[in-house]
């Protein structure tokens, strides 16, 4: 997504760096919280409750492992690259003729309003080219495209600072888990994810890979989101999870957003019905095997 703007007269972009960076980071922050951290944490909580696997108090920082695993799936989190879907760059140039400052936003994440700018596209909504604006942009970008512009990267695929950005979000969530509250999935979504997790676990057990420890259970649950599509494809899994979801739904309670979880915080209703849920999951798997 490319969007073009002009900075309002009298505004020097370097003096408003913090506002521009915040405008870039807010949507990426929402995306990381809503797509990774909050659902990841909720599912961790439900899976741990189901198995009552929590023997010692655990910090919400386990979520950090989760987000790094899912966000940076194929690489070492300390060395790897950010996915392209988080790309988010602002380019600043100055028109040598009019001295206007022009801004180009190149981002995959949907952005809200940038501060101190007005829209300055050269293609109008009706498809007509605004030649004056087009000339202004060609003077700024010149023949070497974006090489003549200053830039702010929030996230770029090969950047260490991009990973730092994700780490900082994880640390925010670990320090005050309540920031995740607006992004927690609905009970129905949680029930569906837990049902899929149980089915995946039944497949693993049928394959002779019985999880033994709390760590293993946790690992399965965190990997499930990634494996889901591959499992469905490779195992021909066409199982309807609706019955299982119906059983899980009334058992769910609110996810506690506390900095540390203790065994007493776990949802005992889920564990009390664990055998019945596992039987339902096994039946669902066998009926579709």
């Amino acid at each position, binding site marked *: 997504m490319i969007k073009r703007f002009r900075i309002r007269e009298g505004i020097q972009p370097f003096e408003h760096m913090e506002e521009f960076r915040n405008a870039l980071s807010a949507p990426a922050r929402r995306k990381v919280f809503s797509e990774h951290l909050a659902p990841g944490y909720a599912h961790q909580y439900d899976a741990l409750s189901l198995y009552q696997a929590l023997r010692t108090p655990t910090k919400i920082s386990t979520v950090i492992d989760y987000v790094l695993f899912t966000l940076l799936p194929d690489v070492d989190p300390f060395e790897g690259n950010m996915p392209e879907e988080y790309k988010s760059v602002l380019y600043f140039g100055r028109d*040598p003729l009019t001295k206007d400052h022009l801004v180009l936003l190149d981002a995959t994440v949907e952005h809200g309003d940038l501060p101190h700018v007005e829209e300055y596209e050269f293609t109008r909504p009706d498809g007509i080219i605004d030649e004056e604006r087009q000339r202004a942009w060609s003077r700024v970008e010149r023949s070497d495209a974006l090489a*003549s512009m200053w830039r*702010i990267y929030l996230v770029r695929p090969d950047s260490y600072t991009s990973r730092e950005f994700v780490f900082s979000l994880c640390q925010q969530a670990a320090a005050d888990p309540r920031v995740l509250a607006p992004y927690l999935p609905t009970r129905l979504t949680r029930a569906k994810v837990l049902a899929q997790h149980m089915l995946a676990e039944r497949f693993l057990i049928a394959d002779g890979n019985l999880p033994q420890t709390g760590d293993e259970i946790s690992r399965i649950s965190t990997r499930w989101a990634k494996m889901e599509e591959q499992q469905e494809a490779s195992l021909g899994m066409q199982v309807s999870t609706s019955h299982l979801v119906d059983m899980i739904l009334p058992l769910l309670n609110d996810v506690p957003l506390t900095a540390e979880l203790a065994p007493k915080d776990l949802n005992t209703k889920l564990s009390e019905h664990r055998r019945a849920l596992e039987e339902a999951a096994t039946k669902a798997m066998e009926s579709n095997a």
Partner: protein
Amino acid sequence: MSTKVYNGFRLVAGADPFDFLAHAQGALVPLRDRLDAQSLMQSYAASCDQLAFASHTDNKPQSIQEHARQSLVLLGRLPESALWLKDPHAIAIWLGWEPVSRRYMGFVNSSAQEVTDAVWSFSEVEQFDYWDNADQPQGVSKADWQERAQAWHRMIHPALDEHCMHWEGKSFNLDQYYDDVLAQPALLREAHSYKARAERLATWLLGKQKRIADKALTAYSHVSKHPRRFSGESHREWELLEQGIIERVAKQVQPLLDPLPYQVTDVFSPTPHLRDAAARLEALVCNELARSAQAWLAKREG
């Protein structure tokens, strides 16, 4: 944690960051291309000259273009963690507004000192480097050094990213490395020097002969097996002796070197001059090594 901004600079009061960028781009991109051309021609010439001298079976005649391609393959084998270092002449400039001093300050990110020197030479730029892990340099007053310390402290806390924009002189991506210079034969020709080639070939020859001499020459073997005597002043003396060997051999090598093609697709075809002289040059280096080692030992051992 120490602060080290070796390539720091500051714009003079009233300077515009966009004028500075236009200036930097105009000056640094051609400089980067020249550095690329120099390193490409250095490694290409070394490859051609070693082929002409020794006819390595695994070192076939090749074009500049093919040599550049193979060099990129080799560079690409570096570990992923060194990704941004893959292009040795990548250039970036970071710049931010420092509201207390009301000045723009930043630093150059480049492994080539020529790039930083070029930026420091701009009329709108003041050198503003700073470090706190060693003494301040001569010529900078205590008050100035303190001002730099405070300004950089404000700039890099809590995070440099929050205060700076940056500009990249393209070739952070290895795929683009060499592209611009391969299209500029004049730049390649300018980067070529018979004298430098001869010195590199002589250096290579010396290294090769030292490995042989380590076993075959009594005096040199004695020198290389006594590292404690071979340190400090003694080591510097030995380096001077080696430099003398290189210079004498290079004088003999230079007239034998073949011209290199500058059209990127032309293949280098060596004439037999160097190959014919190989045995004589190797013997020359060997004799020089023996003589130097004897002289060096005689001086050390009275």
